[in-house]
Structure formats: structure tokens, C-alpha cells
């Protein structure tokens, strides 16, 4: 849930659009209060337009489905409370930091891949559409290229254009 809300925040959708609350079977009043309180919050945030965030939502979904996040998620207790196979424990803060970094990177990679669905594009075009820095795009792009998900499609003048390989 921490990762999901972080992804929602990163994509500009807003972490508050997803809420997790604990209500026991005996807490009818608390349930009603939560619904009241959170509905008011959602009302303040206004309507959500899925078409406007289509690209971002797809990127969030892609990031959540990335093997890296799938491996890391749910490993917190194993790594911070128990030990890895080398009998090493990871500090709680370090694990969080690792997870945050992975989340951000996977989101940005996924965003680039989503942008590339529209056909071959240059680094500059990708940066414009995704809202990422040009330098960040070029770095991430080489990462994704090494993973075999994008490839150099050809040159337009002297500008290299990249294409998405995987479906």
C-alpha cells in the first residue's frame, strides 16, 4: 500500500485517492464516520478523469507489474526482522530507501515504455511527453535497452529514434 500510494503521488493522481482503514465487525459507527470523512475528502479533490491520466495510470500499472517491485514487495519483514541467506539483516530505513528508489525508477521506465507505444520517438520527444528530464530519459532508456525492451529504430537526420520491442 505504501508503494501504491507513492506511485499515485508520483503520477500526479494523488495519494489520497486511495485510502486504507481498519474497521472491525463491531464498529458500525466508526465505519459510517470513515465513509463520511473520506467522502468529504474525495468531494474536495473533485472528479477524477481517467482519460486525462491514461498514460500515468498505465505507467503505474506497468510499474506494479515489474518483476523488480514484485520481488521487493512483501520482503520487508523477511529482510528487516529475519535475515537473508547470508544471515544479514537490512536496516528498516535502508529497505524503505531501496523500495522508494526502485518504485521511482520502475515508474519512470514504465512511463517511457508507455510513451513509446505511439511509435518510434527521440529522447527529446519522450521527455516532452513523459514530463521527465531529458538526461533522466536517456539514462533510463539505456537501462531499458539493456533489458531488451526497447531498441534503436533508426535515425531521423542525426536524431536517433527508439522503438518499443515488447508488446
Amino acid at each position, binding site marked *: 500500500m505504501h508503494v501504491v500510494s507513492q506511485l499515485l503521488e508520483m503520477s500526479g493522481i494523488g495519494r489520497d485517492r486511495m485510502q486504507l482503514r*481498519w474497521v472491525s*465487525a463491531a464498529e*458500525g*459507527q466508526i465505519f*459510517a464516520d470513515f*465513509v463520511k470523512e*473520506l467522502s468529504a475528502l474525495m468531494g474536495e479533490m*473533485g472528479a477524477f478523469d481517467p482519460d486525462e491520466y491514461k498514460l500515468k495510470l498505465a505507467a503505474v500499472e506497468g510499474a506494479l507489474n515489474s518483476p523488480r517491485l514484485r520481488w521487493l514487495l512483501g520482503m520487508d519483514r523477511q529482510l528487516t526482522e529475519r535475515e537473508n541467506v547470508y544471515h544479514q539483516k537490512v536496516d528498516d530505513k535502508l529497505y524503505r530507501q531501496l523500495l522508494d528508489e526502485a518504485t521511482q525508477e520502475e515508474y519512470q521506465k514504465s512511463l517511457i515504455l508507455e510513451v513509446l507505444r505511439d511509435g518510434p520517438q527521440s529522447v527529446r520527444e519522450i521527455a516532452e511527453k513523459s514530463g521527465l528530464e531529458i538526461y533522466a530519459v536517456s539514462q533510463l532508456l539505456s537501462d531499458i535497452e539493456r533489458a531488451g525492451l526497447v531498441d534503436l529504430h533508426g535515425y531521423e537526420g542525426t536524431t536517433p529514434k527508439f522503438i518499443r520491442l515488447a508488446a
Partner: protein
Amino acid sequence: MSQTFEPKILAFLCNWCAYAGADLAGVSRFQYPPTIRVIRTMCSGRVDPSHVVEGLKSGFDGVFVFG
């Protein structure tokens, strides 16, 4: 036009906790806004992150998970 905006919210309720809680709220006649559309799950742990994304994709304004 002066109507205030009423959000449409997807709510995942755990069968054993929040769903029963919601039931109790109904039986006890506690008032709460009619903004949520409920999906009952056998456990709130069943809710996958992709369910949340799918909810937003299909046009809900927000997603709640009650466990």
C-alpha cells in the same frame, strides 16, 4: 448547478471485518453518504494493487480498502 459534487468511490470490504461493520452501520441506522460502491472480498489482503489501479481506470474518483 448548486449541487455539491458527489464522488463515486469503489470500496473493498473484508467479509469478516468491515463488511460486517458496514452491515452493523446499516442495521443500527447510522447515516453515511451514498458515495461508495462495495465489493466484498474474503479478506482485505486479497486486494491487489492492480485492483486499485483498475478502479481508477474505470472512472471511480477514489478507492477505499476497509479491513
